[in-house]
């Protein structure tokens, strides 16, 4: 039992990091197609990362030790968080390590590091990015926690595996608050991953950029790690939405190998579906002004709060 859960944990950890570039590549491909371009291969992100890794590291003159260790932390924190979100099975050995709150906080830790790294060189772009990133985070994080709150109240737990059990057991049914939470979580996911309309992952040198502004000074393997981290994070959020709102097909503990295989396929399918959805959404929507973020995320926060309060109206708790 322990052994299998260790095995699935290793598999989950590997999927979290290995599949992530593919997801990003897939989103880019779909977007290109929607824009009428042929677009690069979905495997292009792997090549990019490999190229970055091999490149020489150029450090700014006054880069400190913090600047150099930050990418490792950013990447590992994100990776850790990703490997704790059940994707194809809930039978993972590390799953009691962290609940949903810890997941949010782990991502927060990664963001803390990246914002500091952005400030380290002392350029105005870095500061600009860090400042905006923290603004977004200060609204997105509570919104996400409130979503967690709703689920925790519904399922009586903050552990993702238990929530899945609860949802699969049909305890939820069609809940208004689940719907509201889903919307809130989607908004947060968009903001946190720097997608349109909050940020545009494809741009540089725009005064509206956030994430890219912080990592402008990174090169070589550091940049590779950071890029990889953001890819992992994208996949993490999609997985999170899947595991909470669309857990069907996931292998619960006690199921055999065929459950795992089914879970893997189901996960892959759902991942592709949501990635495609993201691409479509990004294509049809326009980028926002920086100071509209607050409205966007404040909306998410209020939606999630509303979701909690509506719980009582429907008397689910």
């Amino acid at each position, binding site marked *: 039992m322990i052994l299998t859960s260790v095995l699935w944990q290793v598999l989950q950890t590997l999927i979290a990091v290995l599949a992530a570039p593919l997801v990003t590549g897939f989103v880019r491909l779909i977007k290109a197609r929607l824009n009428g371009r042929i677009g690069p291969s979905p495997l292009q992100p792997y090549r990019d990362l490999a190229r970055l890794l091999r490149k020489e590291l150029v450090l700014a003159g*006054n880069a*400190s030790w913090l600047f150099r260790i930050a990418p490792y932390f950013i990447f590992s924190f994100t990776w850790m968080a990703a490997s704790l979100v059940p994707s194809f099975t809930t039978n993972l050995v590390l799953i009691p390590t962290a609940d949903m*709150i810890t997941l949010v906080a782990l991502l927060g830790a990664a963001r803390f590091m990246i914002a500091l790294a952005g400030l380290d060189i002392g350029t105005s772009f870095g500061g600009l990015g860090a400042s905006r990133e923290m603004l977004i985070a200060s609204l997105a994080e509570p919104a996400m926690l409130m979503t967690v709150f709703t689920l925790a109240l519904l399922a009586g737990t903050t552990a993702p595996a238990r929530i899945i059990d609860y949802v699969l057991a049909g305890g939820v049914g069609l809940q208004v608050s689940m719907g509201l939470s889903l919307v809130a979580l989607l908004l947060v996911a968009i903001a946190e991953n720097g997608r349109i309309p909050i940020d545009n992952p494809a741009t540089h040198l725009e005064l509206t950029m956030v994430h890219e502004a912080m990592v402008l000074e990174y090169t070589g393997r550091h940049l590779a790690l950071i890029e990889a981290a953001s890819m992992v994070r994208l996949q993490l959020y999609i997985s999170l939405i899947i595991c909470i709102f669309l857990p069907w097909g996931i292998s619960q503990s006690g199921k055999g190998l065929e459950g795992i295989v089914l879970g893997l396929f189901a996960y892959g399918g759902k991942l592709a579906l949501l990635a495609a959805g993201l691409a479509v959404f990004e294509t049809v929507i326009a980028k926002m002004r920086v100071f509209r973020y607050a409205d966007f995320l404040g909306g998410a926060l209020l939606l999630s709060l509303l979701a909690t309060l509506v719980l009582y109206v429907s008397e689910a708790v």
Partner: protein
Amino acid sequence: MAAQALLAVAVLPLLTMLAMAAHRHKLAPALVHGGCLLVSLLLGFIGIASVLKGGADLAALPIGLPWLKAHFRIDAFSGLFLVIVNLGALAASLFGVSYVKHLNHAPRVAAAYPMFLAGMNLALMADDAFSFLVSWEFMSVSSWLLVLIDHEEEENRKAAFTYLMMALFGTFCLLGAFGVLAQAGGGYGFDAMRTAKLDGLQSSLVVLLALLGAGSKAGLVPLHAWLPLAHPAAPSHVSALMSGVMTKVALYILCRFLFDFGPTPAWWWGAIIMVAGGVTAVAGILYALIQTDLKRLLAYSTVENVGIALIGLGIALAFKGEGMLPFAALALAASLYHMLNHSVMKGLLFLGAGAVLSATNERNIERLGGLIHRMPVTAACFLAGAAAISALPPLNGFVSEWLILQTLFLGPKIPNWAMKFGSPVVAAMVALSAAMAAAAFVRAFGLVFLGRARSQAALLATEAPIPMRISLIGLAALCALLGILPVSATTILSQIAQSLMGIELQGTIIEGWPWLAPISVTRGSYSGTVLVASVLFLILVTAVIIKGFGTRQVRRGPAWDCGHKEASPAFQYTASSFAQPLRRVFGASMFQAREDVDMPSPSEIRPARLDVHMRDPIWQGLYQPLIDGVTHLAARLNRLQTMTVRRHLLMMFLTLMLMLIVAALRRVFS
């Protein structure tokens, strides 16, 4: 145990006398701080011993109120706070040993510092209202003197004055709370107060007064006004104590009132305290976000953390009011853990600020920068503190906030609508304040330690001396330790909380090592140990892969910055510009922040200007009207003193008439 502790405390006044007697001697201040270090070490051990031993240990001195005598008592609960206080005192004293060398008025500090420690320790040990308030006031007065160290500055005198006024206000409130309890319990001893039976109104009065009294010391919004004024004025190791430790003494007595003494407040008092805590947390961190004075920023962050601890206390009270004692114990344990954690991390941050201050003589974060290169140890420790206080795993701040959030998730179990709706809202406030704390500390750390030096002083800074570094490292290690291995600490805390609630051996915090889970394992769990091990493993894997995969060449070059060439460090993002988006989003309504841009046309050669105007809503809305009112009334009443003798006689006549008429009316109507 109590007797030994009293003896240890008795050493402190001797140290003060030593400091006064040898005030011309250069080494005396360091020596006094060394003595304080030993005393706090001893008291800390006594605290640990009484926590482990459990039970209560009594001592009485034939002083104080004549018919009562002074009673002292150490039980596990006060033992815990003795640990918290003396842990902070230990670090601060060690830091102080070399820090005082940089101070202008070291002898003054050395004289007041031991008294401050004595006051805090005695307040924790006191077992009757009189001894408690004497110690409490002693603590206030000695810290007032410490705020007045640089009394040549007008600003510091104002800060000290505000502080003392707020302290006195708090004392009066506590006095009232004690008075009501003493009336009901039949004596000023805490024993009588424990058994006091109060009716609803009296309970409410006690809780209200205790909340105001302890709150004014702890920094409950809107009674926090003194914190941001006093903390920057005091020497840094003292501010570390005032912020990290003294606020805990206030929370200690609040806990005694709420959970140990007689009052049986209804659940809604818990809700009120919870909401007050939530407002305190959010307001505190909002203020922190816009500060440019490093120590003031830290002071506001203290306000935030006190708010979070209060949320825990509030929900514990609500559970207690509804008779859900295991939940109440959980909430209390979470809150206690947060207090412990906050004292460690805030001590660390203030000492870090002190190291920066002594190296650069600068508190304004707009004029610092790049210190990570010249003060790497300080920077690393400060970073640990900043991450911990931003509630980032795997450090200690996260664990306690996680526990508090978990208890808030239990809040809707209280069967009434206010708690059902209130708990999510307060949880949102906790989340909001944690996220904004991260923003505030990214800003603080980033502006002080990262980037390039913004002033000559920052450029010439040198690393802190060894004793200072040791205490910084020690506290940083403790931050990590309490986060990574929280289990033994939480076990003890939940036992203390349970004994205070009067329940035994309940699974408040389930801890199948290394897991930490509230009430039951299915409610969600956390393990700092496993998390850290896993993350370290992942880092190792990453590093190994990268080593094997990529080149190892490193080249230093100028910053790219999208091709801009920025010559001057003044081009960096400043503290104000960092705060600008947040200021716009949150500050527009709360602080009425207004930005005036003066952009000269291209033909002009004057520099552009951006002026930010902000208004402190609490000061302007509450304190300023009070001050104005008193001034106005004083001016009006002063005319009474400039009357002629005849008019004074008239006053006398009217008073006489009034009383006679009252007497006559009584006759007529009776």
